[in-house]
């Protein structure tokens, strides 16, 4: 036991002391923060403002297009479009909206000129404005009262609740959380699995393995590496967890208090985009609170470790089959990466339909359960995932990794000392059943 501890320590510290560990560990939360903060900041600050010259020969739109943040319309009904095209930039316009004489029932020939592409948001803003101006004009002509129509419009959202206590749920948040955690497990399996495999290969190719195995059992060497790398992963997630929750708490500070207040009162029009962003944040924060984080986190750690142990020992076995030629290993990893990829594919289906039989079985069979179960869990336990399914999934995963570790150990101890000839998977399988 003392020896395996020494091996774990070495595996852990040689990785943690590497510069790349520090960089990855710090960059991920920064990227996460950027993903949240940048869209909010963009919504809040907006783009630089555009002045648009409107040459309206029809007279329908003059003074009818609303100015908004970042877009100002200047009406030049008398201007000559050809001369304006030549010098609109000199007159400090970003572009020209040209409206010819049109038939209100069949409008055509509206054009927008600018240097370079106009951009999607400007394009849709102008199209919206033009269309609503035309609609308004048509309503006027048809004798429909605009205020009456507004009263008739509906804009409500059904509140989806789940479970007996009628807890407020939100499929979108469950979807997001499920997708994210399923995906993280997928990355963990591949990334840390190959890390284990490379470590084993390094030991074999550098021939330290034989020296080591004269001091420790092959199984100790393999498990030491697997546990050491798992500890690196857990430390990394711990740091990420702390940093990300810190960021999560800091983000509201970027939004002004008035806008948050406005958002909570539903008074969105008044403050524009700023309030809208704050409202979105408040809504997320609200439903985030509705998820059972304790259960979800402990399941995450379980599936993280269980899935990792299940696959990493297989990766270790493959690494032990390697020779100097690394391309052989690429082929050998194929049978292991395929179930992982199938797992992520089932996971992507399962976040849409957590009750489908594909999702249920995918979350029980240990080859895919770490990813698929994490996609289903945010939808609720025992609502979406009954306790028996969770229990069965747990038990099978534990049984599964005991089995894979045992089989991998058999392959590993023969493979790690086998040099000079290419080992096929078929041959390696025989080592599992061979005694001694």
């Amino acid at each position, binding site marked *: 036991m003392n*020896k395996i501890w*020494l*091996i774990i320590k*070495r595996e852990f510290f*040689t990785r943690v002391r590497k510069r790349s560990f520090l960089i990855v560990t710090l960059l991920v939360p920064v990227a996460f923060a950027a993903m949240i903060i940048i869209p909010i900041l963009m919504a809040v600050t907006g783009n630089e403002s555009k002045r648009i010259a409107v040459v309206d020969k029809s007279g329908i739109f003059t003074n009818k297009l609303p100015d908004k943040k970042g877009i100002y319309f200047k009406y030049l009904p008398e201007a000559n479009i050809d001369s304006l095209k030549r010098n609109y930039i000199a007159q400090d316009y970003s572009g020209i909206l040209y409206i010819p004489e049109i038939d209100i029932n069949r409008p055509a020939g509206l054009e927008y000129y600018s240097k370079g592409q106009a951009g999607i948001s400007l394009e849709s803003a102008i199209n919206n404005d033009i269309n609503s101006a035309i609609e308004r004009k048509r309503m006027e002509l048809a004798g429909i009262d605009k205020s009456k129509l507004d009263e008739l419009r509906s804009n409500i959202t059904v509140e989806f609740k789940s479970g007996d206590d009628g807890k407020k749920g939100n499929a979108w948040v469950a979807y997001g959380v499920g997708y994210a955690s399923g995906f993280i497990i997928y990355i963990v399996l591949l990334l840390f699995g190959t890390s284990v495999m490379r470590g084993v290969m*390094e*030991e074999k190719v*550098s*021939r*330290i*393995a*034989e*020296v*080591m*195995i*004269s*001091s*420790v*059992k092959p199984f100790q060497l393999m498990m030491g590496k697997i546990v050491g790398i798992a500890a690196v992963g857990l430390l990394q997630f711990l740091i990420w967890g702390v940093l990300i929750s810190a960021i999560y708490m800091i983000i509201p500070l970027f939004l002004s208090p008035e806008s948050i207040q406005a958002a909570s009162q539903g008074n969105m029009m008044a403050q524009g985009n700023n309030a809208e962003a704050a409202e979105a944040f408040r809504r997320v924060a609200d439903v985030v609170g509705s998820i059972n984080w304790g259960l979800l986190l402990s399941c995450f750690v379980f599936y993280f470790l269980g899935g990792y142990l299940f696959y990493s020992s297989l990766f270790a076995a493959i690494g032990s089959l390697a020779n100097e030629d690394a391309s052989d290993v690429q082929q050998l990893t194929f049978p292991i990466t395929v179930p992982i990829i199938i797992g992520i594919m089932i996971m992507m289906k399962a976040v849409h339909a957590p009750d489908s039989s594909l999702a249920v079985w995918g979350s029980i069979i240990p080859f895919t359960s770490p990813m698929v179960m994490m996609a289903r869990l945010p939808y609720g336990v025992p609502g979406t995932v009954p306790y028996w399914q969770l229990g069965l999934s747990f038990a099978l995963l534990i049984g599964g990794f005991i089995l894979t570790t045992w089989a991998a150990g058999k392959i590993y101890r023969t493979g790690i*000392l086998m*040099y*000079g000839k290419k080992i096929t998977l078929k041959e390696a399988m025989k080592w599992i059943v061979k005694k*001694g």
Partner: protein
Amino acid sequence: MNLLEVKHLKKYYATHKAVDDISFEIPQGSIFGLLGPNGAGKTTLLRMITGIFYPDEGSIVLNGHPFDPQRDTQLIGYMPEERGLYKKMKVGEQTLYLARLKGLSEKEATAKIKKWFDKFEINSWWNKRVDELSKGMQQKVQFISTIMHDPKLLILDEPFSGLDPINSNLIKQEIFNLAQQGTTIIFSTHRMEQVEEICDHIMLVNKGHKILDGSVKQIKQDFKQGLFRIGLGVMPNAAQMATYHFKIVEVHENAFTVKMNEDSTTNDILLHFIQQNIPVTYFEEILPSINEVFITQVQQTEKAPVTAAQQPA
């Protein structure tokens, strides 16, 4: 007292018998040469003695007890033919790690490593990474990491390969020192001149079988062919050479190599020249080199019918 007793050891692979019923004993403090051509089963045999492989049959008694790979790792130091160290690790950390895996405490291990590093004058390498060292330097580190826990049984597989003459000599001296202090050493090689120089006992294996074993002196005696070289002051003519006691094998400048007749004695040869008043300048027995014994013995066993394709063990 025998430090190691190996009895009827067998290890069979699917396609061939790597070690087929080998028994031998090694007295404590002796240097034991394990000889054999490539693929003879030397490495498999050593791996069983180090506990890396389990034998299919047979027993190993180490230091008076049945060998237990878990308990006895500290008694054994093993340097495999293919050297290996963690390339990215620092020299000091690496040796410390290997020593601790042998069961030394951190304090004990550090003290012992310091002692050896002083002795080999490589203290300045402590913080160097292994891949910054030359091959020969890495060999030294490897050697130290094999002996730093004071093993009772030291197993060296081709310890001099890749070493320059100076470092070779350094390690050779260390091997003698350790043997004098009571360490038992198994020395596997196919470089015969080193065997004669270093080993007390040897064992020759081929195709998984023991072909012969014994002390170097004894083996040379057993395989001698009655050859002598005699140096003469004046070269005699053919008539003066006619005798019952010996035949001329080779003529040299002022000397002959002769093969003695089985009934004769060395004095018969000497008297033959002395009586004819031919001055004898020197007279010596020619013993076969271990190399010659090795080659003739291996060739003899090669003639035996080949049962399975030879594979590297």
